[in-house]
């Protein structure tokens, strides 16, 4: 009987099933116990120092070799080795490393005890360090992603690590543009008009969300990350009270210590994108236009230029050889080959009692759309030192600078792509003097009216070259944060921890479009102060284990923003704020503003475990939130968890193959986000008045806010099971949850006698139900080969269950390229409404034509709901799609053969529809090849808005994608005996299976609410295919 364990966080993340957890920083090592008879057996138990507690899955390594093992669930280990002198290195997360020299000349039994590294039980470690044993993890679906995954990501974006790894986390790479473009939704959309983004906590410190621009953790260096924990359910996020409702992502960075070592890595990658729309070339376009005008009776116009007289209506331009010019596909002009390079240098270890981790990273990424790039510089320093035997201090500094250049899609997608392809093919090749006239030709084809009412027309004079090379949309971000932590160990049971962190974040965004005299600048900054005081207590006596924590935390931020925007009209500049889109933060409408938030919480957590079978945990979080002038709220968030490990029960003790069988139920409450100043009245200082014989500025309220606004609150009940069997070679997990949201924030019109406008009100209730399943199998576990396969599946159904005033919230737009949406009681969230397209009328079978609900509009057939009316009109709109996936799944395979390893990650999103506005726009402007046949077929009705609001452009955007395929080779032999090295080759998005006809089914845009985001592809920046090679040296 032997036990083989993988230490392979590099290749795969093994979630915490409650018992076994492999953790080995950075290295891919495989140890196999040799059963040869001329070897002696070392066996023993590893315990927590000063107690009888055993440590499960502690690591025992033979120094200087790759051999080692982990302790089993009784804290025991055994190793067979040839006689000789060895040093056993025992490590366990949250404990000090212990080196035990042994002389092996007989079978040995050792009892090793490890000392707790108290100072590491910081904020994160409440969860993270106790992955195996910490009571709080039991009975709660908390999942981890190890540094092995995060450190080897293709792009330097920590959020990428969440792609397809954890059931219940719907992570969308919304844009292939360089820089951070992830949209993470944990267990559904937790808010419609508020922020649905999870809370990020980096090294215990809360990352503020002020608006869309400061969101996230793009400033982090992936190489610094040690562990990511995802708290999905409200029973765990109750710890974060007002901030926990959308799920919490805890990120723990490297702390240093141990052996001194230096690590250098270099990465080079290229990205390519080859999918194209089928667009007409210049010749085809002009032919079609001519035909269209003749057959369909196009609007009459003439090209008249005073200096040149009348110009030809359908001008052809020929090159010197007489061939039509402008027949190239303009898409080739937009897309290029992206490239990426990264340098990372880090050092860690311990010098004169000071543990340190230092790193610097430079990341440079050029996107697949011309003239888009992103750069990131990060610097991290983490040092800690013991002062005496009881006190430990830690200093942490993180600094970063990011430069985005044309990579930020503002509201409604990427202009270069969207407008670039909606461009008359011959336009670019016409002489300058008639450019302006040419555009008339360009949009007359389908009709001025449609083009005017959509976004496309606004840039009609901009050629793709101008769009690509003349616009400068840049943003520079700076982040600096410093943290000081002091840990004082009163005695072996009691620990006091104090942390304070101060951080400054700011960015400057500027958008310059010289040809249109548009200048926009916005700046935003936030100062964050975060303080935490913890008292932790741990005690075991007999069969009882008690862990308790009391915490007081104080979070404060002060965010401020300023928007300068000037648009030049004929002869004066006037300010315009429309270009700045800031969702969930109403107060920033207008030229600027600020918000000051204070959040103080008193938290009590107690966990009790009896005989390691019965576990119960309570969290109480009494929080007080102060924001702006009106928000003064106090609330109690609580949670309870019960876990029962059946495998330890007597009646199952005889079942040898069952390793663990945990059943749990939990319940908890958490709040959604701070209100982001939504309860502050909006003022404008735009007024000018000619009073006092001089012109003076004035200010005033222009939109009242809801002074009684409260946060959204989620109450969740979760039940789950975790089963591990056959020596942990088969693991099953499942969770079922019901989340209920009270006080859902929705728009509500303000009565006209209060000035009109819209504000937010807590007028709804929403319900999510979901199922998450996971399966992990180790089919092959031989000496040299290990194959681990893992699959996850999750589904989430979401309904608005109640609207207090019963009035549905309708999101309609006059833009033909923006579908309609509706939020109503008992309707699934994310429904897209429009006309149901049935086909060309003449192609419909006769019996179908006679049906009452088939309506004819010109030559096209649509579903008719209002059968009393013959024409197709507003009342015939129906649900034509849903933008929220029915289920998502992932499948991860990792294979290790000697020094080679391979990982493959598949990610699937199924049952999601998207309105392909990019394609629809090419129909309006008339250069899509699909239109040609319709025009030649004399189909009428393709110029009408109904066609563009129909299901003709709603497509199934389900996809299955091979997100990652990675091969790596890490020889055991070091260069010159001391430099370890590893080389790896990685592919991204190599295979995508989808029926979606657009560029990328995954890419989407940013709209004014959370559920229409995914419903539209409006020139979304596609995710490219990538090829990466990286090298890693360790000294």
């Amino acid at each position, binding site marked *: 009987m032997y036990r083989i364990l993988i230490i392979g966080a590099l290749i795969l993340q093994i979630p915490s099933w409650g018992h076994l957890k492999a953790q080995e920083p950075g290295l891919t090592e495989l140890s196999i116990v040799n059963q040869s008879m001329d070897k002696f057996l070392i066996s023993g138990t590893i315990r927590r120092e000063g107690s009888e507690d055993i440590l499960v899955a502690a690591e025992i390594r033979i120094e200087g070799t790759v051999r080692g093992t982990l302790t089993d669930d009784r804290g025991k280990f055994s190793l067979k080795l040839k006689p000789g002198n060895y040093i056993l290195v025992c490590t366990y997360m949250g404990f000090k490393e212990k080196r035990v020299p042994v002389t092996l000349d007989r079978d040995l039994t050792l009892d090793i005890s490890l000392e707790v590294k108290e100072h590491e039980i910081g904020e994160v470690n409440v969860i993270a360090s106790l992955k195996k044993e910490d009571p709080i993890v039991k009975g709660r679906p908390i999942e981890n992603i190890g540094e092995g995954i995060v450190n080897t990501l293709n792009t330097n974006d920590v959020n990428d690590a969440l792609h397809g790894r954890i059931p219940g986390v719907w992570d969308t790479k919304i844009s292939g543009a360089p820089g951070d473009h992830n949209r993470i939704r944990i267990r559904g959309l937790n808010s419609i008009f508020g922020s649905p983004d999870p809370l990020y906590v980096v090294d215990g410190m809360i990352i503020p969300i002020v608006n869309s621009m400061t969101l996230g953790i793009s400033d982090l260096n992936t190489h610094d990350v040690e562990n990511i924990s995802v708290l999905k359910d409200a029973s765990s996020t109750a710890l974060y009270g007002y901030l926990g409702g959308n799920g919490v992502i805890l990120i723990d960075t490297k702390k240093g210590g141990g052996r001194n070592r230096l690590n250098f890595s270099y990465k080079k990658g290229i990205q390519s994108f080859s999918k194209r729309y089928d667009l007409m070339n210049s010749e085809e376009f002009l032919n079609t236009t001519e035909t269209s005008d003749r057959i369909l009776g196009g609007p009459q116009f003439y090209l008249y230029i005073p200096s040149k007289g009348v110009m030809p209506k359908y001008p052809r331009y020929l090159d010197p050889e007489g061939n039509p010019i402008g027949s190239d596909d303009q898409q080739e002009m937009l897309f290029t080959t992206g490239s990426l390079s990264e340098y990372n240098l880090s050092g860690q270890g311990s010098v004169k009692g000071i543990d340190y981790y230092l790193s610097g990273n430079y990341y440079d990424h050029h996107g697949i759309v011309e003239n888009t790039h992103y750069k990131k510089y990060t610097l991290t320093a983490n040092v800690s030192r013991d002062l005496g035997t009881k006190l430990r201090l830690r200093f942490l500094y993180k600094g970063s600078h990011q430069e985005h250049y044309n990579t930020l899609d503002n509201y409604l997608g990427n202009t270069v792509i969207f407008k670039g392809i909606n461009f008359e093919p011959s336009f670019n090749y016409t002489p300058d003097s008639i450019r302006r006239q040419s555009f008339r030709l360009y949009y007359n084809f389908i009709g001025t009216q449609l083009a005017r009412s959509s976004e496309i027309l606004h840039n009609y004079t901009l050629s793709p070259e101008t769009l690509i090379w003349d616009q400068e949309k840049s943003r520079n971000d700076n982040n600096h944060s410093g943290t000081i932590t002091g840990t004082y160990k009163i005695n072996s049971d009691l620990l006091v921890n104090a942390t304070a962190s101060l951080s400054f974040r700011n960015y400057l965004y500027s958008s310059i479009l010289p040809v249109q005299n548009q200048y926009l600048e916005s700046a935003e900054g936030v100062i964050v102060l975060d303080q935490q005081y913890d008292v932790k207590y741990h005690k075991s006596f007999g069969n009882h284990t008690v862990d308790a924590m009391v915490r007081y935390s104080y979070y404060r931020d002060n965010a401020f923003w300023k928007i300068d925007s000037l648009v030049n009209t004929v002869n004066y500049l006037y300010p315009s704020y429309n270009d700045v889109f800031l969702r969930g933060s109403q107060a920033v409408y207008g030229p600027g503003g600020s918000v000051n938030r204070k959040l103080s919480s008193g938290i009590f957590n107690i966990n009790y475990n009896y005989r390691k079978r019965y576990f119960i945990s309570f969290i109480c979080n009494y929080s007080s939130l102060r924001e702006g002038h009106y928000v003064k709220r106090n609330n109690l968030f609580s949670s309870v968890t019960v876990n029962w490990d059946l495998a330890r029960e007597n009646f199952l003790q005889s079942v040898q193959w069952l390793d663990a069988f945990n059943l749990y139920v939990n319940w908890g409450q958490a709040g959604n986000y701070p209100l982001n100043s939504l309860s502050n009245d909006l003022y404008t200082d735009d007024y000018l008045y000619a*009073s006092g014989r001089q*012109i003076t500025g004035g200010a005033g309220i222009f939109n009242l806010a809801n002074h009684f606004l409260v946060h959204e609150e989620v109450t969740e009940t979760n039940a789950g099971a975790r089963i591990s069997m056959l020596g942990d070679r088969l693991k099953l997990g499942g969770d079922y949850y019901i989340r209920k949201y009270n006080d859902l924030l929705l728009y509500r019109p303000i009565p006209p006698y209060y000035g009109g406008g819209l504000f937010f009100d807590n007028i709804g209730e929403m319900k999510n139900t979901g199922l998450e399943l996971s399966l992990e199998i180790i089919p092959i576990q031989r000496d040299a080969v290990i194959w681990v396969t893992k699959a996850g599946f999750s589904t989430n159904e979401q309904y608005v269950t109640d609207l207090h005033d019963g009035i549905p919230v309708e999101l309609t737009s006059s833009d033909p390229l923006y579908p309609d949406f509706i939020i109503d009681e008992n309707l699934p969230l994310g429904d897209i409404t429009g006309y149901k397209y049935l086909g060309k009328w003449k192609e419909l079978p006769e019996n179908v034509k006679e049906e009452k609900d088939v309506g004819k509009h010109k030559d096209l057939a649509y579903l008719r709901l209002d059968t009393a009316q013959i024409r197709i009109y507003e009342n015939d709109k129906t649900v034509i799609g849903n933008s929220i996936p029915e289920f998502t799944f992932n499948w991860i395979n990792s294979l290790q053969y000697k020094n080679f390893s391979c990982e493959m990650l598949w990610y699937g999103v199924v049952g999601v529809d998207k309105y392909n506005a990019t394609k629809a726009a090419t129909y309006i402007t008339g250069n899509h090849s699909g239109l040609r046949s319709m025009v030649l077929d004399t189909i009428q009705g393709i110029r009408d808005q109904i066609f563009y609001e129909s299901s003709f452009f709603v497509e199934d955007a389900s996809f299955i994608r091979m997100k990652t395929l990675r091969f790596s080779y890490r020889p055991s032999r070091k260069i010159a005996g001391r430099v370890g090295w590893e080389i790896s080759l990685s592919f991204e998005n190599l295979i995508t299976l989808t029926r979606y006809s657009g560029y990328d089914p995954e890419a989407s845009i940013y709209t004014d609410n959370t559920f229409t985001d995914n419903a539209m592809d409006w020139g979304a920046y596609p995710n490219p295919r990538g090829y990466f090679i990286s090298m890693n040296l360790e000294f």
Partner: protein
Amino acid sequence: MKYKTLTLLSLALVFSCDSLFHEDSDDYIVLDSEQEILDILNGIYAQLVQVYDEGYFEALCRADDINLYPNYYFLWPEWPSGCGSYYSHDYAPNYENIYHPLVKIILNANSEILQLSGEKDAIFLGEFYFLRAYAYYTLARFFGNPHLVKDIDVSYTVQRPTCEEVYEFIEQDLIRALELLPLTNQYARIPGETPHQGTAKSILAEVYLSWAGNPINDGARYRKAVQHSGEVISARSMYGYDLLDDYGSLWKSTNKHHAETIFGIYYDYSNVATRNRIGDMFVGWLNDRFRVSSHYHPEFYFYERMPNNSRKINSFNNIEKRYLPSVDPCFFINRSCSTKWVDTTEYFLNDSISNIPGRYGTSTTLYLLRYAQTLLTFSESRARCGILDDSTYEAVNMIRRRANGVDPYTPSEFDLEKNLSQEQFIDSVVWERAWELNFEPNGRWFDIVRLDLKDKLPEYRYDFDFPYEVPEEYLQDNWYFYKIPE
């Protein structure tokens, strides 16, 4: 030891950095400086300017067209088709532009009134009360009984009050303003512009006059109107009020501050945002080519029948202007409009600087109340109280004299006949008021409402005006009051 000291120092630093934050995050809400109060006041005046746009005067100009119902949008075919894209134009009164800025004024005033204290900021508080009262008075005259909102916490359950409650509220505000405002013009925040007690008193007299008429018809209020207007007239030298000799000079943009202004809004041509651009309205039929409908026609019809004197000449100006006639014969702008809206000579002079639309405008002051009106109010309300003495006659005669271009203080041939009956006298004053205030913000329309004249009005329409029929459902509406926009 060094470590420990350093550590403790830095710890103390970080743990105490709460003081980095500005305690006062809601700068706009807590008025901590006089400048912020002034900003809000300026904002209110700027919004008051927005009320008096084309929509306001269109609403007034429908006075005599009894077939036009207040809430009926009618799309006028303003221009003949086939000439550019100007073939139709919606000229239904845009009363939302009247309602919304007034509500915003009330909102901002409410916000300040809730925060300011009478002792410290009496002069500002008085001005806010005054402005709130004025906004409610304007709302009441257009919409009858607008919701009374006194706070800034949005409530969905505010009920429409009775018209009387609205006037009581306005009265209260003006009485409070009277207590708080400075005594006379010279102590006003901006002398000659911002309100003082004389302004509040004059407005109060107008409020009582309206209160006494339709829809409340509380005749007892005439006495109060007499009292307040009488006080203003007798103390006119203290307040600095007087009639100007030359009627026409009132609307010269150079004549911005003078004795006849009681309350007005001011413009400045030098900035595009503060220009008086009410002259963008026009009366299309004056151009031979385009004899088509306009909402201004009823008012213009009335104007055409005014007594022919210097007042009539100085009330309207007809200037036609064509842009680029050689290129586009359709592209012309006929800027015939009242001189009481803009200084027409200057307006078109500015216009001709550049042919680009958007450049024109003037600095002409728009009078929301002038001394002449107070005289007429005094005269009418006094007559209604049955007092037909010399001072009653004198007040209206002053107006008549000036209208005919003679010295207002010297008796002349234009004076009313003595010994008219009460009814005859009132009738004369009402006509005088209509002619005197024609095209002005407090023009004839409000008298039609106040005196319930609907059934006595002739139907002023030109034969080329577009024929239309009002749909049945609108005929039930109150002809005098607009519906509050939803």
